[in-house]
């Protein structure tokens, strides 16, 4: 008792009434009560008449399923209502009154549905709906997986159902699932006014010989419903024969030309996409004969009227590969697998070292035996190199990552030549592909797609690295190959830094915080290299001269350097390829700075860039001038500063140099305030500090480091123009550094003290500017500085009030600032140290971490590829661009959230599980889109002869959007002809395979007559309907139906026989 109440509580949310019948004694009765209550809850207790089913409504309509749980003793059962949703716009209920034409009692709804011929063989429906044509039915099934195999239990359940239906006046057919679940066996019952219907089923593995054709089935059915008369035309038969095409032949298979693994393995420019096996595994052609008079059709073991080529309707359905291997997805999945590994660089590379000893011999042998190894074409070399790795080209792509990983372990090292090719791809910028301009130019804003994804620009060094990494990971042996590439990459960065070569494909700007961290780091490194180059280009002559005086042993260097200068002059046209001799020796005397590149720190000021060829030839001559100019003792009073400054974009000539216009040399600086960096050594700085007596007005030093006059301003206290000095550049920063800085700043809090400290920390730049200003303007005062630096703080001839706050940082800094030109100041941005930090950061990354850093770049590339492909397919897949939009938006969201750093700069933070699963999910979406594209491309290829592209696209679109597509004009229509052609090809192959003996001599004789155009049907379905008085000849005439399906391994009959329950 209490049991049933519990159940009710679960089932009924808003219980209005509850019948607690205390006369219920047995479990069985309480079970029936539960069923009845569920039926009540679902409002199935009245006979409802609906509009007749529309054509194909069972397929096209929306189905709903409602579930309730109940128990028989303690065995749980599930009761489900499947129902075609009412269409809200149509009138649902038919007036029942107007049906009274005769004395006839109208048939209940389910009978009407069963007899409706417009929904035979629905393309997509629940099996009960398919077998019986019902739009509303109940199913009772046992919740445990085993099913009910005991016949008496089945009977018990069926009886329970019958009783409940009768008690509740419910005319919805009610099925009980019996036997093992996989057999999909149902027994059912429906009860209505004056009649009831019994649903029964036969399910066998093999088809009994006597029922293999329609004739046998008709006989069976007629006997069952007591129809004895042979000539009655009251049986109607619908039939559907299905033929399977699984071999598309050479003309139809897709990909038409499978990608060549070697080509894939050596293709770094873009990611490739496309499947490796046909996504369309089979085509099912159904020939359909709608409702015919059963007795006029002949279908037996001798003759059949069912000739598919002349069937009135042809319908096609496609089956797709479940787990399609696609290239783009493979790149991504394999890459994400690499990101989860924990090996360090040394783990991986040491293993390789162990192998190298015996490898060398092997490689040498390969060189001899491989004819193409010595070839001149790099392409050929590359390909031949790859064959060593990619031996089994057939299976390569089908293998899981596991296998690829195994290959890596066995193969070990990427051949040197391949590695060299990868390196040269990364570091030599080839002409770029056109995608960027086409896909991104429409966006006027400089905020482009790669910014959205926080990736890196196409064809940047970062992008090239990512491409190499992802390709190598897929094709050259997984993580170990990745480690090698990463090693090569970082080593090359080191070399370029040492040589002072700017990184190719990294723009010269400061780190772009809207790109990925790795790209920012490379930009940072590039900034450092640029500054180093600038510094060294200034230093050689001066330092060597100075050193020459001090220490003759440096003569050789100076010669070296002169040589390199001359060299520069020759190739001066190309800035980026400028070679600068590393100053290895020079650095020896510079002990107080950490690393070798600091040599230049001791240099003097000599601004010269090799960038302009027209000036190059003067450089030697100008050295003398520079030398003099840079001497410590230079007395360079105001106007004598001779320079021709070319700063950045704006070329500004300063006219005051006439006095020295015999000096044709022009200083060409491509950065306005680059002067910066250089500082005379700290020693000199400290000597200056002794002159503490120096106060605000001190004209006793010569002006130095002037950039240009500031408008027409004159100094307030003395009669000379106010000059803007050369100043140090602001330091470039990367995101993680900014984060660290923000962290430090925020930790200081918003107390007064905190703010002070914070301001002090940032005042280095202000101090530097003040010192430079003082140096350029002997005799200046703070007011002069403010007039240039912060003009709004100079009002009515005096400092603003806030500048007058006692002890404010501006005043105090000004007081302590010495006149030091920028080039002799200590570097604010220590490029040497920063470069080392970047390299240290990169060197310490595990390969898996490096891979993580590259994921946004790889995803960016994949999305570009996907977008192009989807644009090309949008006629067939109109929804795809929308899917792409969604994927892109999702990717942007994920990558914006993903910080690869913590609160300490230059420390990589591996991704969280959350980010990882989001990225994986993103990749699944990309795979889905790629699969869709491949299906469409495959179908386009298969039906390319259908007509013009628009026709092909329209048909492919239909195939993709609907489970089944009817063909115009069946077998003789355009699609029908193509399909017949494919079947014919498949038949030819089958026949040839079956009769290998009849190879040549009899070919012309046999082919035309023996090969049928279609194979044997894989399945045959029949629906037989009839009206007859049942159970006795005196009963009311009621409709009956039987569905039969005959397949190779399944034989099923599903009959619905109605009884007149009023009159016998």
């Amino acid at each position, binding site marked *: 008792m209490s049991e049933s109440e519990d159940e009710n509580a679960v089932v009924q949310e808003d219980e209005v009434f509850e019948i607690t019948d205390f006369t219920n004694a047995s479990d069985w009765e309480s079970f029936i009560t539960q069923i009845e209550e569920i039926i009540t809850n679902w409002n199935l207790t009245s006979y409802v008449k609906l509009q007749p089913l529309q054509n194909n409504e069972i397929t096209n309509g929306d189905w709903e399923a409602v579930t309730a749980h109940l128990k028989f003793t303690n065995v749980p059962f599930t009761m489900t209502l499947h129902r075609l949703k009412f269409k809200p716009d149509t009138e649902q209920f038919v007036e029942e009154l107007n049906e009274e034409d005769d004395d006839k009692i109208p048939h209940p709804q389910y009978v009407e549905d069963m007899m409706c011929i417009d929904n035979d063989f629905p393309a997509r429906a629940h099996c009960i709906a398919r077998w019986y044509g019902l739009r509303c039915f109940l199913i009772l099934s046992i919740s445990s997986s085993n099913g009910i195999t005991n016949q008496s239990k089945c009977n018990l359940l069926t009886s329970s159902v019958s009783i409940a239906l009768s008690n509740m006046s419910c005319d919805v057919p009610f099925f009980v699932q019996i036997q093992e679940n996989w057999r999909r066996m149902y027994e059912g019952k429906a009860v209505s006014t004056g009649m009831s219907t019994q649903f029964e089923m036969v399910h066998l593995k093999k088809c009994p010989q006597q029922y293999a054709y329609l004739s046998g089935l008709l006989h069976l059915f007629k006997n069952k419903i007591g129809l004895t008369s042979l000539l009655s035309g009251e049986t109607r038969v619908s039939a559907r024969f299905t033929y399977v095409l699984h071999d598309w032949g050479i003309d139809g298979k897709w990909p038409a030309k499978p990608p060549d693994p070697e080509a894939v393995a050596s293709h770094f420019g873009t990611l490739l996409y496309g499947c490796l096996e046909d996504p369309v595994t089979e085509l099912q052609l159904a020939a359909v004969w709608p409702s015919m008079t059963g007795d006029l059709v002949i279908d037996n073991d001798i003759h059949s009227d069912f000739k598919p080529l002349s069937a009135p309707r042809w319908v096609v359905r496609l089956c797709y590969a479940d787990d399609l291997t696609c290239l783009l997805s493979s790149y991504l999945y394999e890459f994400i697998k690499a990101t989860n590994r924990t090996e360090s660089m040394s783990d991986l590379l040491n293993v390789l070292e162990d192998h190298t000893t015996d490898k060398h011999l092997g490689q040498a042998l390969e060189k001899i035996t491989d004819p193409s190894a010595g070839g001149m074409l790099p392409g050929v070399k590359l390909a031949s190199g790859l064959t060593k790795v990619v031996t089994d080209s057939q299976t390569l792509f089908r293998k899981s990552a596991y296998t690829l990983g195994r290959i890596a372990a066995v193969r070990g090292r990427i051949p040197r030549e391949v590695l060299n090719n990868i390196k040269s791809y990364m570091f030599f910028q080839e002409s770029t592909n056109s995608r960027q301009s086409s896909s991104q130019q429409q966006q006027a804003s400089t905020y482009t797609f790669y910014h959205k994804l926080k990736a890196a620009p196409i064809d940047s060094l970062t992008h090239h690295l990512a491409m190499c990494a992802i390709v190598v990971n897929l094709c050259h042996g997984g993580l170990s190959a990745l480690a090698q590439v990463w090693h090569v990459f970082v080593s090359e960065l080191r070399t370029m830094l040492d040589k002072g070569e700017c990184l190719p494909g990294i723009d010269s700007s400061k780190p772009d915080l*809207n790109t990925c961290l790795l790209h920012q780091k490379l930009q940072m490194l590039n900034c450092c290299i640029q500054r180093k180059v600038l510094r060294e280009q200034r230093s050689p002559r001066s330092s060597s001269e100075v050193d020459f005086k001090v220490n003759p042993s440096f003569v050789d260097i100076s010669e070296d350097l002169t040589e390199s200068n001359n060299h520069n002059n020759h190739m001066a046209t190309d800035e980026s390829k400028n070679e600068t001799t590393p100053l290895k020796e020079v650095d020896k005397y510079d002990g107080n700075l950490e690393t070798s590149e600091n040599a230049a720190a001791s240099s003097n000021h000599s601004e010269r860039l090799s960038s302009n060829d027209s000036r190059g030839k003067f450089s030697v001559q100008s050295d003398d001038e520079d030398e003099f100019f840079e001497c410590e003792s230079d007395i360079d009073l105001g106007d004598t500063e001779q320079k021709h400054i070319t700063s950045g974009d704006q070329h500004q000539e300063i006219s005051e140099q006439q006095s020295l216009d015999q000096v044709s040399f022009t200083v060409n600086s491509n950065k306005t305030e680059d002067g910066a960096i250089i500082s005379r050594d700290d020693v000199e700085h400290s000597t200056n500090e002794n002159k503490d007596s120096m106060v605000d007005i001190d004209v006793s030093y010569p002006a130095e480091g002037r950039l240009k006059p500031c408008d027409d301003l004159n100094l307030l206290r003395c009669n000379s123009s106010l000059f803007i000095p050369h100043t140090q550049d602001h330091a470039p920063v990367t995101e993680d550094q900014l984060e660290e800085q923000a962290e430090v700043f925020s930790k200081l809090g918003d107390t007064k003290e905190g703010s002070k400290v914070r301001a002090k920390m940032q005042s280095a730049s202000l101090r530097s500017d003040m010192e430079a200003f003082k140096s350029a303007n002997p005799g200046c005062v703070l007011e002069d500085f403010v007039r240039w630096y912060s003009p*709004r703080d100079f009002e009515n001839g005096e400092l603003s009030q806030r500048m007058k706050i006692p002890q404010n940082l501006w005043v105090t800094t000004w007081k302590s600032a010495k006149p030091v030109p920028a080039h002799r100041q200590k570097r604010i941005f220590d490029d040497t140290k920063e470069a080392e930090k970047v390299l240290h950061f990169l060197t310490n990354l595990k390969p898996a971490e490096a891979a993580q850093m590259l994921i946004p770049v790889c995803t960016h590339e994949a999305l570009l590829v996907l977008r192009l492909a989807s644009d090309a397919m949008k006629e067939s897949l109109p929804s795809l661009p929308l899917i792409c939009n969604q994927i892109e938006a999702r990717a942007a969201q994920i990558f914006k959230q993903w910080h690869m750093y913590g609160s300490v700069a230059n420390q990589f933070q591996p991704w969280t599980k959350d980010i990882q699963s989001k990225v994986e999910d993103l990749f699944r979406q990309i795979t889905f889109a790629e699969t869709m594209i491949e299906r469409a491309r495959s179908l386009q290829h298969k039906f390319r002869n259908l007509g013009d592209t628009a026709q092909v696209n329209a048909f492919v679109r239909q195939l993709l959007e609907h489970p089944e597509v009817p063909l115009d004009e069946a077998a003789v229509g355009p699609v029908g002809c193509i399909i017949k052609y494919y079947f014919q090809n498949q038949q030819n192959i089958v026949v040839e395979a079956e009769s290998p003996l009849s190879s040549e001599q009899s070919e012309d004789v046999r082919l035309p007559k023996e090969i049928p155009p279609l194979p044997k049907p894989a399945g045959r379905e029949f629906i037989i309907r009839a009206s007859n008085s049942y159970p006795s000849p005196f009963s009311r005439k009621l409709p009956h139906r039987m569905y039969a399906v005959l397949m190779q391994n399944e034989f099923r009959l599903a009959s619905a026989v109605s009884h007149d329950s009023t009159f016998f």
Partner: protein
Amino acid sequence: MASRAPQRPNNASPQGKICQFKLVLLGESAVGKSSLVLRFVKGQFHEYQESTIGAAFLTQTVCLQDTTVKFEIWDTAGQERYHSLAPMYYRGAQAAIVVYDITNQDTFARAKTWVKELQRQASPNIVIALAGNKSDLSNKRMVDHDEAAAYSDENGLLFMETSAKTAMHVNDIFLAIAEKLPKNDAGGTAANRPTSGVDITQGGGSNPQGGCCGRSQ
């Protein structure tokens, strides 16, 4: 007009979402950027606010109906010399307040160039607000309110005339930004680094001086 519902300060119910947003203040020097922030964060005002060097960093939390918005405020120096640093601060920012001084037409022109730069360089969905500060000095007004309002309409900016001195519209402009910011995605969710050292429990509207509550004059 000046007083909206005062923000519910930081005793916010924790069940709501917490979104963290980076906000940057830009504008000519001496227009009152630091004063606006000081007013918003601490409810204070100094007649002579020291000229910012580099950039100052403060945080403040405001509560909307169901979300708590934590602002990480980067208050930049206005001097031209620091212009090249600005991208560093506004690149990752979800919101920006461009400030000008209503008593100076040049600062308004400068504000317009900042807006242009943000529209070009910053992330496309950045929320930009234009603040005409020093509205207490309306007798010295040089920038017409309607002109600035029309300009803001054209460019899709939030616009208010503010006074850090009287606190007029200071909270409102930050609240308006908080409301306009998208709460569903990226910027939001729990901060990626632990809450900063700023003691947010005593900032803002809970301040007994009430300067921060948008209750002005």
